[in-house]
């Protein structure tokens, strides 16, 4: 039989080779990401670190308290809200996994939900959990001795530092600074980089030129010196809200404002090349306006590099924050950060008390490494050139 049919008569044979079930972009993405073993492990590791850091108040208390403090958890509103969201999400997904007969996922997610529930209950003071003080300078044991520079042992798994503080609880708490930097820098970079980059890439001429020269300027600023100087001035600025003056938030915002340039350049390049693609031309031929072309056609296709690059920038920003704290210009003591702990740990490491340095630096390195692995995994999983072809 030949292909003689009139146009209205479907040539059904050309439909061969299409599977019964549609494969969504999300399915493809998840399949490929999971094939990236390292990225999958890194993803779970980062989730674990972030979750534990979020729950730091559960294990520690922030007041000068006794070695085993008791009482309601000191917890900010933000932490409560995030924990609520995570817990609710975990319970919902656990239910979905249960319905979908994914036993492993259901159990894991239920555990996450359960921990969240316990955390939330205890934070309202219903549960009385013994906690470790990580701020107090001296932690006397039952017999009244101050336990400084204690090597790791079963009761103190990561030992104590030169002021007798529990290293484990400080490492957990230090994760909060890195987490704050990660979230804030990620959000700021994605926002600024995408907006600046897409405008510059889509509107050639004056818009492009001025935005890109401004980007060059920001990229040209020496990161560490600027961060040091501004970081010094931050707490003195009257008009800033309190939370920006101390702790990691101010530093995080500052870093976010400094490091978006690289992303803007990449987004611009993406827009420049996507703008010339035939499917964009097709949209124009259909009569689509700029807004539709940008949001419906170009941006979704530029999303992969945006996500990947933002992830990698977040990794760098966490290191920069640690470096600032290490040098003493970042988050001030006694608030624990991995960088600050590495600094004080380095001072005592020369006397053989290696644990504070090793565990804080180890937490930092593994976290940044994991973020970079995730970035690599995302890059592979989102790469449209790797689309699974059906031949």
């Amino acid at each position: 039989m030949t292909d003689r049919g009139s146009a209205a008569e479907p040539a059904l044979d050309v439909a061969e080779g299409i599977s019964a079930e549609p494969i969504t972009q999300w399915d493809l993405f998840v399949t490929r990401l999971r094939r990236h073993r390292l990225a999958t492990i890194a993803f779970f590791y980062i989730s674990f670190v972030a979750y534990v850091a979020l729950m730091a108040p559960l294990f520690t208390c922030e007041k000068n308290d006794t070695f085993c403090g008791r009482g309601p958890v000191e917890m900010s509103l933000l932490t409560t809200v995030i924990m609520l969201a995570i817990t609710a999400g975990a319970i919902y997904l656990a239910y979905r996994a249960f319905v979908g007969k994914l036993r492993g996922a259901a159990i894991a997610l239920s555990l996450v939900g359960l921990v969240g529930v316990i955390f939330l209950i205890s934070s309202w003071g219903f549960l009385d959990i013994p906690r470790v003080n990580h701020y107090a300078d001296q932690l006397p044991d039952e017999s009244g001795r101050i336990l400084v520079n204690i090597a790791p042992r079963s009761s103190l798994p990561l030992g104590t530092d030169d002021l007798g503080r529990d290293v484990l609880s400080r490492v957990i708490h230090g994760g909060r600074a890195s987490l704050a930097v990660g979230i804030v820098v990620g959000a700021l970079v994605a926002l600024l980089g995408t907006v600046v980059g897409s405008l510059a890439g889509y509107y050639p001429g004056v818009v492009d030129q001025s935005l890109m020269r401004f980007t060059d300027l920001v990229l040209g600023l020496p990161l560490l010196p600027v961060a040091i100087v501004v970081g010094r001035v931050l707490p003195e600025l009257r008009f800033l809200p309190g939370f920006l003056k101390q702790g990691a938030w101010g530093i995080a915002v500052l870093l976010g404002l400094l490091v978006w340039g690289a992303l803007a350049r990449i987004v611009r390049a993406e827009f420049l090349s996507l703008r010339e693609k035939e499917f964009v031309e097709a949209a124009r031929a259909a009569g689509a306006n700029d807004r539709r072309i940008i949001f419906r056609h170009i941006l979704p296709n530029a999303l992969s590099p945006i996500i990947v690059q933002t992830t990698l920038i977040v990794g760098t920003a966490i290191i920069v924050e640690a470096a600032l704290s290490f040098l003493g210009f970042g988050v001030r003591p006694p608030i624990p950060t991995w960088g600050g702990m590495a600094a004080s740990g380095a001072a005592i490491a020369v006397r053989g008390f290696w644990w504070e340095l090793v565990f804080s630096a180890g937490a930092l390195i593994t976290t940044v490494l994991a973020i970079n692995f995730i970035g690599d995994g995302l890059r592979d999983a989102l790469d449209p050139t790797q689309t699974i072809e059906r031949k």
Partner: protein
Amino acid sequence: MAEPLLNVEDLRTYFSTEEGVVKAVDGVSFKVNAGERRGVVGESGCGKSVTAMSIMRLIEPPAGEIVTGKIEFDGRDLLQLPEAEMQEVRGGEIAMIFQDPMTALNPVYTIGDQLIETILLHQDVSKSEARQIAIGTLADVQIPNAAARMEDYPHQFSGGMRQRVMIAMGLSCDPKLLIADEPTTALDVTTQAQIMTLMLELAEQRNTAVLLITHDLGVVAGFCDTIQVMYAGAIVERGTGDEIFHNPQHPYTWGLLGSMTRLDETQQERLHSVRGAPPSLINPPKGCRFGPRCDFATDICREALPILHQSQEGQRVACHRADELDLKALAIGAAS
């Protein structure tokens, strides 16, 4: 008859991918005699380029692997040669030119440098002799002011000129076999005519055997002595140009010819068009690979894989029904 120059036996080259093993070349056997011009024709994904890469041993493990087969060239099995000796063969006794000459030329060296390097690699001559040979071959491929253009970089040449340089590079060591993988696909039709004419002249002059790989049946018609048509990793028909074009025995060859628009077409008939699309090479259909698209498939076609055999008409064809079908009598497009 003398020993063939190239003897490929039961070549199987597989690639492992995310979805499974792609049997890109699956049991290909053929011989090329000295001075013979052989066309390898097929659509994308039929395994024609992989066949060429396998002969050159340019398949990179672990992605791809020559699973079985024998490639005898001039009395030696290329698959058994140590890599060092294989390098001597590549570019020396077997030359290859590619579709995109820009990727095959290094942009930071002059054309002269690259030509001289190739010559020094394969021939025992001094640098100044190599230079003379290089200028000579550039002149052979009709590049004007050959001596002066030796100092130019690849980007200073047009696409057609670059392909001439590639041919010059390929022929500089007087190979016995030239493998041309879609040499004119990236070029305009007037440039294609220039290049094909040039290749024909040079191949005849030097009695070089040519394996011309292309999707364009028109190009092989004027160039090749013998033609093999590939489909889904296997040869489906092989014969002289006359046999293939005037008396195709395989329904795929027949369909391919019917699909072509012709410059000398006088009335606007509907094209025949082979229905459907080529099969997956991971899970090829049972029986004849062309079966699902074939207008003449019967039960046996769905059961057993046909092997290449001599048909009554003389050429070799891999079709169960080759002898009973009279494709010649069928007006193209009126199969049913």
